[in-house]
C-alpha cells in the first residue's frame, strides 16, 4: 500500500512515494472529537470569505473552538493559546493577536500561553511551509468572534436586553442605550456557560475597525524576556535530577558502530556513564542515527568525555560519497534527457530552429541550517509515560514519533514546546527528541541531549545539492521561443524511502514546473539523482536552486539580447494572466488553485513596485551594479533588487537591498519586514559561503569557521521592504520562506552588471578574486 505519512511534515508528498515502516498519520483520526468543532476547510461560507485554503487537508485539520484557545479570568486577564511553534517569525504573537483583535480584547491584558503537542485538541501544529497565517487567519478570527459573542450574550442576559443591543469594545461589553458596561473579567464566569455559537452565524469585524491587524504596532510577546535572558529555549529546560548527554553518532550516514572503549571517557571528572544509543537503518525518516552517549553531571563534562571515547565505525555504503565526483555526476545527468515533468509545445524542435540558444548550467551545493540553537531536547520517561521539552516545529509529529519509538500510547506522551532558537526546517525533524526519550527510558531519570555545532553540521538533514541546466532558444528578434530546464538533485523523499531518485511533486512545484514565463515551447525535466546523506527541508527548499537558475538565466538572456534586465524579465513574464502549466497534479503549496493561482499580474506588480521604490536604473558608482530577480513561492510574490559593489580585489559588499512582497492580507507588517531583512542575510550567506561538502562520506565542515555565515560587518547597509497593500479579499500567503530565493540570483545579476562576470556555481567563494 502506498501512503502518505504526514502531509504536513512531508509538505505535499505525493501518493506515488512509497514510505515503508512509517505509519500513516490519519487525517480522519482528528474528526469527531469531543470538546471542539473540528472543521475541514473551507472554514466559512464563501459568502463570508472569498477564498479557501488547504488548512483542512493538513493532518488533524483545523479546530475552531474558543474554549480550547481562549480563557478569561475573573480579573480580566485573557489567556490565548499559541499552538504553532515560535522560531523567530513572530507567529506566537501574530496568531493570538488575531484572536484578540476579533474578540475586542485589550492586548495589554492578554497573556499568551504555548500549547503542548496535541493535534486532536488544537488542530495541525506543523509550523512549516510558511503556512501559519495563511491557514489560521480566518480560524483565529472565528475563535475570537465566538469568544466575543459569548461575552456579549452573557452581558445581554445579565442586563435582560437583546444581544443585538450590546457590543464588546476594548475589553468591556457596553449597552449604549443605558450606558451600562461590564468588563470581560466580570462576565467571564457567565460567558463560560454560554453555548458556543455556530460558526456560520458569526459576525466578524469590519477590517476598517481593526486596532491591531495590519498595523505593525505590537512587539513580539517574548521581547522583554529575550532581552533579559529569561526566555526559555529547549536548552534552558532544567529538571530535578536531570542528566546531561552528548552522543557520538556514526560519521557517515547509515554507518554503524563496530566497537567502542569507554574507559578514558569514564575517567573524565563529571562523567557518569557511557552507553550505546539505538540507531535505525538508513533511510529512516526522523529516527535517531544511533551511536554512543556520554552521560554527565553537566554538558561540559559530557563533551569532554565524548572527546575521550575510542570509537570504531563501519561507514557502510555511503562511505564513498564525494562532493567533487557527485557534482560531475549531476552535471552529466543534466546534459541528457530526463523524466519530463512539464511539456508545452515542442521545446526540442524550437531549440533546434532558434536563432540563438543561451545555456546556463548552475550548481548549488548542500546547505546546513545552523540555527543558532543547535538541536537539543529534554525527556523524562517513567514507565509507560513520557514528557518531552523540546524546540520542535512539529509537536504533534514529535508526540507520535516518541510514542512509536518507545512503544507507548500517544496519549501517554506530553510534548512541551519551548521557544526555538531558529528552526529553518531543521526542527521539523524530531530525531533529537527521540534520542532524549530513549536515553531517559534507559536511565530512568530526566535527560537532556545537547547537540554540539559539530554534531549539527555532521548530522543535519541537509538542503539538497543540485545542478539546474536551462537552455533558452531565442528567435531573430531576441524573443524567447523555447525553454528547457533540467533539474537534478537528490530528493527529500530519499530520507523516507530507499531508492527515491526523482523529485517529489512538492519539489517539482517549487520553481520548476510552476515557472510562470509566457513561452510557447517549454520542457521541464527531472533526471535521476541518488542520495547519499539525509536530505531535508531547508527554508525555501527547492525554490533556492530553481529561482537561482531561472532568474540568473533572465540576466543571461538580457545580456545576450543587449536589453535591460527588468524589461527582459517583464517580457518573459508576459501578459497579466493566470498561468495554467501543463502538469499533472500541479503542487501548489497545498493550496487550492482557485484561491492561490499563479497570477502574473501580481508577479509583474512586485517587479514594478521594487523597480520604482528601489530606483531601478539609477546611476551607481564605478564597480557597483544592480541586479533584479522575482520569484513566486509559498504562494507569495517577491521581487528583489540588489546593489553590489566589487572592489579591485574582488571583495564584494552590498550597499542596498530593496524587496517588494505581495503576501496578500497580512497581520503584522513589522514582522514581515524583519523576515525579509533576515532573508537577505540568509540569501547573502548562501551566495557567499554556503557549502557543505562530503569526502569519504563525511561532512568536511566542522563549525562556523568551515561553514561560514554572513556577519554584521558584511551585512547590507540598507534593506528596504515594500509591502503590496492587499485587496479586500486577497488570501494571506507565506512570509517566512519566500524572501530567500530571489536574493542570490539578484546578487548574481548585480555582480554581472558590476564586473561582467557571470557566476553560475555557488558559493561565490574566491570566484571574484582576480
Amino acid at each position: 500500500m502506498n501512503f502518505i505519512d504526514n502531509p504536513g511534515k512531508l509538505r505535499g508528498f505525493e501518493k506515488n512515494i512509497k514510505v515503508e515502516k512509517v505509519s500513516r498519520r490519519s487525517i480522519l483520526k482528528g474528526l469527531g472529537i469531543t470538546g471542539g468543532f473540528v472543521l475541514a476547510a473551507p472554514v466559512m461560507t464563501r459568502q463570508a470569505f472569498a477564498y479557501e485554503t488547504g488548512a483542512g487537508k493538513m493532518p488533524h485539520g483545523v479546530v475552531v473552538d474558543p474554549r480550547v484557545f481562549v480563557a478569561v479570568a475573573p480579573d480580566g486577564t485573557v489567556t490565548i493559546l499559541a499552538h504553532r511553534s515560535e522560531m523567530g517569525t513572530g507567529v506566537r504573537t501574530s496568531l493570538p493577536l488575531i484572536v484578540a483583535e476579533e474578540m475586542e480584547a485589550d492586548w495589554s491584558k492578554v497573556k499568551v500561553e504555548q500549547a503542548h503537542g496535541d493535534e486532536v485538541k488544537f488542530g495541525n501544529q506543523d509550523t512549516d511551509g510558511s503556512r501559519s497565517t495563511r491557514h489560521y487567519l480566518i480560524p483565529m478570527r472565528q475563535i475570537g468572534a465566538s469568544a466575543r459573542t459569548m461575552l456579549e450574550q452573557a452581558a445581554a442576559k445579565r442586563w435582560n436586553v437583546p444581544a443585538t443591543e450590546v457590543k464588546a469594545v476594548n475589553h468591556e461589553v457596553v449597552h449604549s442605550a443605558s450606558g451600562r458596561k461590564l468588563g470581560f473579567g466580570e462576565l467571564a464566569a457567565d460567558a463560560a456557560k454560554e453555548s458556543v455559537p455556530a460558526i456560520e452565524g458569526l459576525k466578524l469585524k469590519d477590517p476598517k475597525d481593526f486596532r491591531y491587524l495590519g498595523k505593525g504596532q505590537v512587539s513580539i510577546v517574548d521581547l522583554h524576556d529575550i532581552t533579559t535572558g529569561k526566555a526559555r529555549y529547549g536548552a534552558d529546560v532544567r529538571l530535578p535530577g536531570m542528566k546531561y548527554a552528548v552522543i557520538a553518532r556514526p560519521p557517515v550516514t547509515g554507518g554503524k558502530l563496530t566497537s567502542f572503549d569507554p574507559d578514558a571517557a569514564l575517567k573524565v571528572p563529571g562523567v557518569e556513564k557511557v552507553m550505546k544509543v539505538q540507531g535505525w537503518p538508513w533511510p529512516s525518516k526522523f529516527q535517531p542515527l544511533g551511536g554512543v552517549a556520554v552521560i554527565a553531571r553537566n554538558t561540559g563534562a559530557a563533551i569532554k568525555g565524548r572527546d575521550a571515547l575510542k570509537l570504531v565505525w563501519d561507514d557502510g555504503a555511503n562511505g564513498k560519497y564525494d562532493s567533487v565526483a557527485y557534482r560531475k555526476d549531476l552535471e552529466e545527468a543534466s546534459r541528457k534527457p530526463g523524466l519530463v515533468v512539464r511539456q508545452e509545445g515542442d521545446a526540442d524542435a524550437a531549440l533546434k530552429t532558434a536563432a540563438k540558444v543561451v545555456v546556463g548550467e548552475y550548481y548549488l551545493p548542500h546547505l546546513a541550517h545552523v540555527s543558532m540553537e543547535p538541536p537539543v531536547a529534554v525527556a523524562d520517561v517513567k514507565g509507560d509515560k513520557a514528557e518531552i521539552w523540546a524546540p520542535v516545529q512539529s509537536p504533534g509529529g514529535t508526540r507520535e514519533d516518541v510514542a512509536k519509538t518507545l512503544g507507548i500510547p500517544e496519549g501517554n506522551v506530553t510534548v512541551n514546546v519551548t521557544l526555538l532558537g531558529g528552526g529553518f526546517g531543521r526542527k521539523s525533524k524530531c530525531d533529537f527528541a527521540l534520542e532524549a526519550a530513549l536515553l531517559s527510558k534507559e536511565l530512568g531519570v530526566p535527560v537532556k541531549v545537547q547537540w554540539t555545532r559539530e554534531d549539527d553540521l555532521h548530522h543535519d538533514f541537509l538542503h539538497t545539492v543540485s545542478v539546474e541546466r536551462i537552455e533558452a532558444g531565442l528567435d531573430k528578434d531576441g524573443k524567447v521561443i523555447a525553454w528547457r530546464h533540467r533539474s537534478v538533485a537528490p530528493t527529500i523523499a530519499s530520507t523516507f524511502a530507499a531508492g527515491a531518485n526523482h523529485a517529489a511533486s512538492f519539489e517539482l512545484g517549487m520553481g520548476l514546473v510552476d515557472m510562470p514565463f509566457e513561452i510557447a515551447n517549454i520542457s521541464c525535466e527531472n533526471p535521476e539523482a541518488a542520495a547519499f546523506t539525509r536530505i531535508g527541508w531547508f527554508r525555501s527548499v527547492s525554490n533556492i536552486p530553481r529561482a537561482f537558475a531561472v532568474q540568473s538565466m533572465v540576466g543571461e538572456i538580457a545580456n545576450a539580447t543587449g536589453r535591460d534586465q527588468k524589461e527582459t524579465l517583464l517580457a518573459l513574464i508576459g501578459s497579466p494572466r493566470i498561468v495554467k502549466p501543463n502538469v499533472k497534479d500541479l503542487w501548489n503549496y497545498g493550496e487550492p488553485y482557485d484561491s492561490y493561482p499563479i497570477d502574473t499580474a501580481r508577479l509583474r506588480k512586485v517587479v514594478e513596485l521594487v523597480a520604482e521604490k528601489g530606483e531601478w536604473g539609477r546611476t551607481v558608482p564605478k564597480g557597483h551594479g544592480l541586479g533584479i530577480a522575482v520569484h513566486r513561492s509559498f504562494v507569495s510574490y517577491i521581487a528583489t533588487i540588489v546593489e553590489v559593489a566589487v572592489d579591485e580585489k574582488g571583495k564584494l559588499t552590498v550597499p542596498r537591498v530593496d524587496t517588494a512582497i505581495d503576501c496578500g492580507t497580512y497581520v503584522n507588517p513589522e514582522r514581515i519586514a524583519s523576515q525579509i531583512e533576515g532573508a537577505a542575510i540568509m540569501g547573502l550567506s548562501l551566495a557567499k559561503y554556503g557549502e557543505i561538502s562530503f569526502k569519504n562520506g563525511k561532512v568536511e565542515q566542522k563549525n562556523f569557521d568551515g561553514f561560514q555565515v554572513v556577519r554584521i560587518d558584511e551585512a547590507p547597509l540598507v534593506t528596504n521592504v515594500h509591502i503590496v497593500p492587499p485587496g479586500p479579499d486577497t488570501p494571506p500567503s507565506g512570509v517566512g520562506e519566500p524572501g530567500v530565493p530571489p536574493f542570490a540570483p539578484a546578487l548574481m545579476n548585480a555582480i554581472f552588471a558590476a564586473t561582467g562576470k557571470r557566476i553560475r556555481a555557488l558559493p561565490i567563494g574566491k570566484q571574484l578574486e582576480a
Partner: protein
Amino acid sequence: MIKVKINGQEQSWDGDPDLPLLWFLRDEAGLTGTKFGCGQALCGACTVIVDKEAVRSCITSINDVAGREVTTIEGLHPDGDHPVQKAWRQVNVPQCGFCQAGQIMQAAALLMDNPKPSHDQIREAMSGNICRCGCYQRIENAVHLASTGV
C-alpha cells in the same frame, strides 16, 4: 575550590577546573540566559562580561575567572533596563532571540569601552556575534540608539 563572583554573588566550584565557564553558568549555576552556539568562540552566543571585558564563556574555563567578576545577561541590569536592552526593545531587534543575550552583552561591553562608537566601530565590535535570523541591520541601529540615549 574556585571562587568567582557572578552577578554580584559569590559562587564556588570544586569540580574540574577546566570546565568552560559557559557550562558552569548554565548547568551548575542555573543561569541559562547565556547560550551555547558553537563551543569554539566563533559565534558569540555565550558572551559574558568579565570585569569590564566581553569574553566568550565557551572557551574560558572556570579557573580563568577565579577571583574575578562575571556579569551575565541576568545581571546586566536589575530590571532589564540597561540602555542596550531598552534600545533592543525599541528597535524590535530579535527574531528567534537565541543569540541576543550574547549580542547585548557584546554591545554593553562596547559602550563601556567606547560610549559613542561610529558605524564602522559598531560593525567591527559586533562582528564576532552571529545572528542566523539576520537581525544585523537592527542590531546596528539599536547599538547606535543605545549610544545616543534611549
